[in-house]
């Protein structure tokens, strides 16, 4: 499979925008997960702008692929991807975590157009994805796929392995699990908190086909997603272990569990966004609400 250079450039821009908007959202909402959102930016760009069959004009279209964000604390990145894809206005991202809004801290499928399930309690998403994949089979929709993104720390949960066992038992080769292996958990590094290795061997032992990829390399991601959808389809579910960097894109957030859950204040966000722009060779853009008196009043006067 050949990837056109202009496609790579287009998706790189989307990934940059996902990071930029995630940081804006987390600042504006005063809460959120920077590290786990940033590690997912390229993966979500490739899924929502290349791989997934979805129709933003008709989010409930029967023939769509399904996407489950099991690590639902990365909701800023997902909301950014959905908004950029046209499921709702980009401007609405600034209502992240707002009472009465459509963008909950953790995902709520009854509120947000384009969401396929609700989440937040780690370990639950892969089971839901298994149900969706079984549903495609029962409805005889062989061309559709279910994608499920899991966190690495999330793989500590027993339910993940219950789901893995059942997906292999039912030969769900229409199910693709992507592990965002960013090596950092909420309070420490994976190998300190609860070791996962040998991760590839674990998925293999549970009956899955396993692919590994650099989760920030767009060309490699597109190849792996192509392989998962079209080539390695032989009666086993497919796990893509995506090696990523938590907080990828900024000096202070990269590989740093202190930025697992943390919201910058507007000034800090402004300088982080400028750094992000420089790192990605984009024109410098600061925090869009920095000098917006209403937003400032809300930020400093709120609660």
């Amino acid at each position: 499979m050949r990837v056109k250079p202009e496609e790579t450039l287009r998706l790189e821009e989307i990934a940059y925008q996902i990071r930029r908007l995630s940081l804006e959202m987390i600042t504006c909402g005063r809460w959120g997960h920077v590290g786990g959102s940033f590690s997912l930016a390229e993966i979500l760009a490739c899924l929502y702008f290349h791989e997934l069959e979805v129709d933003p004009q008709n989010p409930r279209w029967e023939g769509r692929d399904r996407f489950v964000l099991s690590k639902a604390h990365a909701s800023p990145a997902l909301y950014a991807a959905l908004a950029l894809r046209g499921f709702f206005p980009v401007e609405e991202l600034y209502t992240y975590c707002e009472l009465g809004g459509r963008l909950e801290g953790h995902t709520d499928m009854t509120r947000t157009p384009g969401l396929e399930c609700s989440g937040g309690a780690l370990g639950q998403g892969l089971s839901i994805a298994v149900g969706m994949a079984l549903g495609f089979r029962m409805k005889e929709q062989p061309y559709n796929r279910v994608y499920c993104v899991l966190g690495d720390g999330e793989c500590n949960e027993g339910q993940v392995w219950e789901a893995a066992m059942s997906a292999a038992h039912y030969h769900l080769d229409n199910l693709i699990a992507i592990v965002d292996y960013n090596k950092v958990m909420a309070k420490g590094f994976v190998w300190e908190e609860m070791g996962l290795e040998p991760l590839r061997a674990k998925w293999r032992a549970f009956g899955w086909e396993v692919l590994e990829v650099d989760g920030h390399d767009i060309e490699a991601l597109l190849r792996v997603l192509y392989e998962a959808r079209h080539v390695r389809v032989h009666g086993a579910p497919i796990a893509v272990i995506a090696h990523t960097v938590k907080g990828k894109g900024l000096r202070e957030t990269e590989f740093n569990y202190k930025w697992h859950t943390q919201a910058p204040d507007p000034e800090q966000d402004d300088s982080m966004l400028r750094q992000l722009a420089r790192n990605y060779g984009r024109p410098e853009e600061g925090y869009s609400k920095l000098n917006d008196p209403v937003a400032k009043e809300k930020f400093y006067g709120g609660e």
Partner: protein
Amino acid sequence: MSEEMREVFGKTLVELGHEFAELVVLDADLHTSSKAVYFKQAFPGRFIQCGIAEQNMFGIAAGLATQGFIPFPCTFAVFASQRALDQIAVSIAYPRLSVKIPGSYVGIPTSRAGASHNAVADLAIMRSLPHMRVADPGDNRELRSLMRAAVLTEGPVYFRITRYTLPDLFGTGYEFAWGRGVRLREGRDVTLIGTGMMTGLCLEAAELLARDGVSAEVLHCGSIKPLDEDLVAESARKTGAVVTAENASVVGGLGSAVAEVLTERAPAVLRRVGVQDRFIESGGIGELLAHHRMRPADIAGRAREALEAKERLP
């Protein structure tokens, strides 16, 4: 002679399966106990064996519900309400998915299996989940009607199946409805409110009380959430004394639901029959009913206590 309730459950699943093509059944290695096995025999392609992994089973049910199916994930009530509570709460109840959860092996008739297999807190747990509807049917007729209502109701439903043969309480014209209780016997002095298998015992208790000249009203609340608050309040205002009876813990179940109504709308003396904040130990059904003071004579005794307390009120 009427059938064991789980037999009726299994056969009704098949009937509904013929009628509703989107109905699917999931199991966690208990289908010959729950009687979901009949559905497996009738519709093997719509029966999903999940193995002994209830958390995963409820997640799969959620995923199927998002695909337009109406899943019945079947397991013992204790595993649904305790082992898989977080999955039911976050994956199913929060997004209001149309998953219908039958909880089998509830309360006293689970008998010799002991505390690990015996659900007594399930009513309390399920009642506390937003969007969840909760029912404990009083006889086979009501179970059948309730299962149809569950399929036709949008959103999550939890209902109980007692491993027991219950006497027929309702005539052929009876239909279950959410939030609707039934007055099975008129009375003036005390109100007995039953749910599930305890309603039949309340009727027997009312007979015992009648021998002593006490006029007991008997209500059945198969629908515990929503509860028929109007019926409960109206009867409590009339009699001023209420006894609830449930095959479950008195903490958080029907007794608590009635207490909430009485406190807010119709203050009355209340006594609650059921498992008194304990795990159930192994034993025969009759022995356990006596041990937990849940026989008709016990209900009648609690009614007399309530009457005395009412008379002592200023």
